[in-house]
């Protein structure tokens, strides 16, 4: 009886909610009556240990906006979808920024860099849901469906759920991809309008997740196309079971998953927005993994032998000088200000040491990182000399705009601004700290109304271009995130070459030179690369954090520390070894 109403639930429309509740109430009354007859539960032979053994609870920081990563840009939504429900053609090797095969077994890139041919795996199945049972495994149609929905406004699914694909548009994918061709059932060809070497990295990001074309057809027949985004079906390691807004998301292990067999049977996201409460839940053992711990939590956790899993993130916090406004148009002034700031004390006070000092715009984990760039020394004496050379020995006053919200890469811009204010007072520079509500702040900064600004950036993909082009290119100073309004033709040429040439060694050379110019011209003071960190209970095995930041529970298991290794777990690891 319960089972039946469960199926009905999916076909329930808005107006039938009440009727449904009424029928449930009747059910309740009849069941309550049953209690007295059958007071001892017969089926509950599950002990508490059985129930917790194969359950992993992740205390997450918010509700996802959608279960289709193509429609959103928030990290919270990506964490609940990209590596859980879906796969992409290529992916990052866990914990690194190296591209490895995923749904695509292998790929070829033509010599001119305009054609990418992907050979798909033939053993990939889609999830089964209450309204959908896949009849075939993954093929080229699914890839075409997933990209064409975002790319072509004529596509039948383009307008479903609003017709906006923010990430796809922001990356100018519509201009980059000329055509996508199905060569045969398991071979797809992407034809680009221009060579773009970060393309593989872009295909590893959440918006490039592959959805089922067959599921879309099925939903069309049911006349509920919008379910494709709210009742997700993918190929990922877990299948969607239930979502209660603001409470939890329940996932079940997908038994036919093509990848790593080691996974827990039940995965639950416990949505807990308040960081203090999240930590309290974690401390009490209510969750196994906790997202976004505050620095103070990390300190407590380290003291108490909890696992702190950390990696330097692909992000940067910076102080951008608006180079179009005096006195920042003078490179000497920019260098002088950069020298006067004591970044060590920022690292201590603002980040609680959960970050590393930044020299270049890209973090050291990137292959394009130039180790030989000369660091700017912290020296107030040298700064005063430079200001004198520039003709500002009597000092001047500037505005620093501090972003009003907290981000992992910049936990407290206001405090950062105050430290800079004190440092600059020593070299006769008077600082006024300015802040606005976040939306206003961003729009005013985009219009170039600021003097200088404390901001940051979290990379969406691991390619170095994801830092240089959006943040420092000439094009982005007109329409983008180049808040220093800095346009250096030599630098711009180098990063364009870096973006279009296909050999990594050549690209590295261009980026090395570009980083030299950047440091010498100092449009920003690079401040820090914050660590990505999560807290993990000792019983959780195999959790790896990604520098890009998306959560992944593939290969994560629950161990029982007080018991001998269960037999089944050993078998499973043998299976993996045999693959």
């Amino acid at each position, binding site marked *: 009886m319960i089972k039946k109403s469960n199926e009905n639930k999916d076909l329930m429309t*808005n107006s039938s909610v009440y009727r449904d509740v009424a029928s449930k109430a009747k059910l309740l009354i009849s069941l309550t009556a049953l209690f007295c007859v059958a007071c001892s539960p017969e089926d509950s032979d599950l002990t508490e240990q059985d129930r917790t053994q194969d*359950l992993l609870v992740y205390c997450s920081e918010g509700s996802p906006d959608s279960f289709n990563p193509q429609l959103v840009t928030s990290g919270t939504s990506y964490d609940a979808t990209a590596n859980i429900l879906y796969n992409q053609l290529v992916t990052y090797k866990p914990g690194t920024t190296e591209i490895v095969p995923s749904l695509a077994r292998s790929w070829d890139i033509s010599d001119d860099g305009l054609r990418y041919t992907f050979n798909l795996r033939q053993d990939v199945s889609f999830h089964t849901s209450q309204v959908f049972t896949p009849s075939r495994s993954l093929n080229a149609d699914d890839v075409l469906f997933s990209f064409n929905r975002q790319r072509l406004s004529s596509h039948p699914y383009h307008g479903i759920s609003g017709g906006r694909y923010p990430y796809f548009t922001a990356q100018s994918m519509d201009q980059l991809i000329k055509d996508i061709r199905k060569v045969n059932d398991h071979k797809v060809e992407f034809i680009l309008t221009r060579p773009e070497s970060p393309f593989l990295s872009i295909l590893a990001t959440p918006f490039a997740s592959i959805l089922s074309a067959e599921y879309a057809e099925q939903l069309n027949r049911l006349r509920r196309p919008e379910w494709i985004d709210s009742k997700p079906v993918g190929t990922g390691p877990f299948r969607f079971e239930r979502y*209660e807004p603001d*409470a939890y998301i329940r996932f079940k292990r997908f038994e036919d998953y093509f990848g790593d067999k080691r996974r827990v049977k039940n995965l639950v996201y*416990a949505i807990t927005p308040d960081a203090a409460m999240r930590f309290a839940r974690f401390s009490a053992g209510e969750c196994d993994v906790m997202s976004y711990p505050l620095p103070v939590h990390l300190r407590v956790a380290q003291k108490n032998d909890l696992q702190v899993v950390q990696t330097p993130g692909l992000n940067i916090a910076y102080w951008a000088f608006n180079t179009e406004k005096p006195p920042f148009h003078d490179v000497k002034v920019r260098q002088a200000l950069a020298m006067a700031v004591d970044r060590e004390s920022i690292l201590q006070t603002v980040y609680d040491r959960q970050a590393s000092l930044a020299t270049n715009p890209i973090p050291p984990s990137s292959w394009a990182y130039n180790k030989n760039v000369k660091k700017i020394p912290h020296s107030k004496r040298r700064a005063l000399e430079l200001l004198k050379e520039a003709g500002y020995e009597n000092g001047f006053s500037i505005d620093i705009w501090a972003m009003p919200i907290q981000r992992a890469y910049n936990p407290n811009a206001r405090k950062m601004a105050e430290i800079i204010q004190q440092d600059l007072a020593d070299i006769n520079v008077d600082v006024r700290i300015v802040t606005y509500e976040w939306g206003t702040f961003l729009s005013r900064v985009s219009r170039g109304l600021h003097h200088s600004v404390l901001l940051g950036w979290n990379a969406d993909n691991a390619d170095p271009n994801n830092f240089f082009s959006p943040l420092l290119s000439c094009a982005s100073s007109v329409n983008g995130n180049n808040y220093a309004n800095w346009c250096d033709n030599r630098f711009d040429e180098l990063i364009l070459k870096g973006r279009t040439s296909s050999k990594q060694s050549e690209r590295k050379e261009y980026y090395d030179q570009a980083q030299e110019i950047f440091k010498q011209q100092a449009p920003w003071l690079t401040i820090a690369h914050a660590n990505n960190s999560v807290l993990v209970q000792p019983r959780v095995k195999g959790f790896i954090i990604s520098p890009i930041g998306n959560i992944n529970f593939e290969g994560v298991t629950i161990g029982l520390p007080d018991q001998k290794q269960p037999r089944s777990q050993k078998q499973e690891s043998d299976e993996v070894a045999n693959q």
Partner: protein
Amino acid sequence: MITSILKQLGTLLISLLGLTVLTFILSQQSDSPIHQYQSDSAFIQYFEYIQFLFNGDWGMSSIHKRSVLKDFLQHFPATIELIVFAMILAVTTGLALGILASTRRGGWLDNTLMTTSLIGYSMPIFWWGMLLVLLFSLTLGWTPVAGRISFEFDIEPFTRFMLIDTLLHHNKYGFDAFLNALHHLILPAVTLSTIPMAIIARMTRSSLLAVLKSEYIRTARSKGISKQRIIWIHALRNALQPILTISGVQISIIMSGVIITEYIFAWPGIGKWLLEAVSRRDFASIQGGVLALSIIVIAFNLVLDFLSIYLNPRLRRPS
């Protein structure tokens, strides 16, 4: 009696009119319109707006693209469960403490109870909630920290009242799930009930003391009726009238308290939903939520007014 009821209904209509005009004006200020109106005149648009509300079209959330009314109804049972439980706690404990204090007037028990209730009355609820979590969940480990139930219980939401849903899963988990849900309810309910409990206790005490001083009680006492009987049969019924009024006023305190309590305990009710909507600038949800909550408060007060008319013979009788 009929005139009193009509008067109440009139007040209700005026409140609703003011409320909808206010939310309508607010919705006009938003950049992304919640409803599509046919007319250009704001006056006619208002009537269209009312029509939309009656048809159940409260707009779509700009973030999730879900119906606001449906979202509200989905989150509401969790809130109701918490409020009902907290209210039961507040009324029973508050009444008991008040009676206890009034019968031992001036004694140490009275003084302690009144001081504690004053503290409880002035407690910032978010701080109090955190303190309870620290003590009972983290230090003593008696209660769970947050949520409605442990996740090892996979409870399908039929009614969305967790206590009922867990009973419906009896064949799967026995009473374990039900007890677990009850266990999760304790700390949030205690947090939420603290302020109303203190107010009810103080009110009961002063009201009961006033009644106990009155002539008819003195008469009863002189007739040799036992103290118990005087309090329970004769005094309390008359003392209840102002307590009932005060309890009604508590609903708005409870409503604002429940928002904070839900946030602290990650309780997936209206409060958490509204706060989430505020942080995402989801205007349709904020507007719909505020409107629905206000209507509930108004309706609740109306019911209480009717109840006090029914209970108070002076109001019942035509003047």
